[in-house]
């Protein structure tokens, strides 16, 4: 085996050490990684720019539509308000109580030998109606004439309303005698209270002409 002498041993070692310099290798790795990262960043930036374009398009489209939508929403809210207000008002109109039909029925109940001196009617809560009728009845049996009026009133109100109650609050004979068609008749004063529910009340024709009333003679 031939003897081989390396006279440049130190120089070669230094060269190898320079090549293996960790800082240099690290800088190279950092450089490669940095390049990859920059490339990735650029790619992302490109994508972001693309998205920004899409956003500006969408914003432009929305800017065109927004006034129309705002106007449509405003109009829609207004229309909904009108519809609901009209519904509530219609409900109020439908649920109100009509006195015209009651007066008509009352006029049908008063015979020639009866006279009403006072009528007081009121709409109570929960759709109840109260009616107080005061008057005078004349006849051979004035109480029977008053009872006839009460029966008629019950019958008339019962045709249109629910839960009808018609009762005498007072019924008293009077000393006064009246002359009807040449015949002297006794008189009675009555107060009738009526209550009924409004459910079936509907606007109707105005009352028929009242039958003639006569003046009591004292």
């Amino acid at each position: 085996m031939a003897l081989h002498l390396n006279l440049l041993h130190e120089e070669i070692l230094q060269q190898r050490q320079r090549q293996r310099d960790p800082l240099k290798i690290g800088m190279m790795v950092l450089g490669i990684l940095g390049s990859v990262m920059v490339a990735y960043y650029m790619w992302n930036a490109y994508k972001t720019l693309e998205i920004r374009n899409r956003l500006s398009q969408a914003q432009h489209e929305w800017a065109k539509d927004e006034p129309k939508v705002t106007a449509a929403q405003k109009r829609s809210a207004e229309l909904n308000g009108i519809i609901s207000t009209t519904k509530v008002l219609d409900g109020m109109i439908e649920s109100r109580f009509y006195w015209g039909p009651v007066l008509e029925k009352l006029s049908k109940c008063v015979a020639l030998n009866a006279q009403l001196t006072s009528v007081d009617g009121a709409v109570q809560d929960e759709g109840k109606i109260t009616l107080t009728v005061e008057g005078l009845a004349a006849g051979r049996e004035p109480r029977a004439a008053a009872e006839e009026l009460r029966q008629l009133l019950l019958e008339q109100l019962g045709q249109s309303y629910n839960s009808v109650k018609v009762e005498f609050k007072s019924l008293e004979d009077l000393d006064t005698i009246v002359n009807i068609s040449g015949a002297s008749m006794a008189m009675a004063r009555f107060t009738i209270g009526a209550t009924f529910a409004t459910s079936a009340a509907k606007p109707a024709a105005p009352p028929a002409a009242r039958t003639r009333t006569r003046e009591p003679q004292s």
Partner: protein
Amino acid sequence: MKQVQIKLTKDQIQKLLLSGMGFIVLLYVYFSFFLGPLNSSRDSMLHQISDLQAKVAGSKNETAKTANLEKQAVAATTRFAALKALSPEGAPIAWFPPRVRTFFASNEIDKATARMETSSPFKEKDLENWTRYSWIIDLPQADFSTLGKAVAALENNEPLLSINRINIKALPEDPQFQQIVLNASTAMVKR
């Protein structure tokens, strides 16, 4: 197989550590100041785009719905306008009593007077632009038949008026005629 043994000098170890730290700093700077903000900006823009697209799609629906509603609400709008027209401009106390007087006069009942009792807002939210007015209407003299016709006509002509109480008394000097007091309430638009 020959095993390569790398012996690092102290200087080399220091340089390696320096490179490692540089790498970590590079990663931190890259993600915190470059890629992170870019990604968050992109996400925010994507979110905005989806919001806007939803709004645009919704706007088309909204416009169509309003057009549809407009068609459906024709009857309600006409009815509402008619009900609103029952309340003329001005304070009700100024125009309601003359209107009542004219109405009853045209129904053969003279000297009708109306005075305002109270006014209060409605409890219903839908009627926040409306006010309830209570009136006392005095009819000093009318016969029963005329009164009935007039009351029926009033109820039919004034849909927003409801009579809450009616008091009829025969006139002592002329029982053919009655004196009437009506308690009525009306709904009127706030002006």
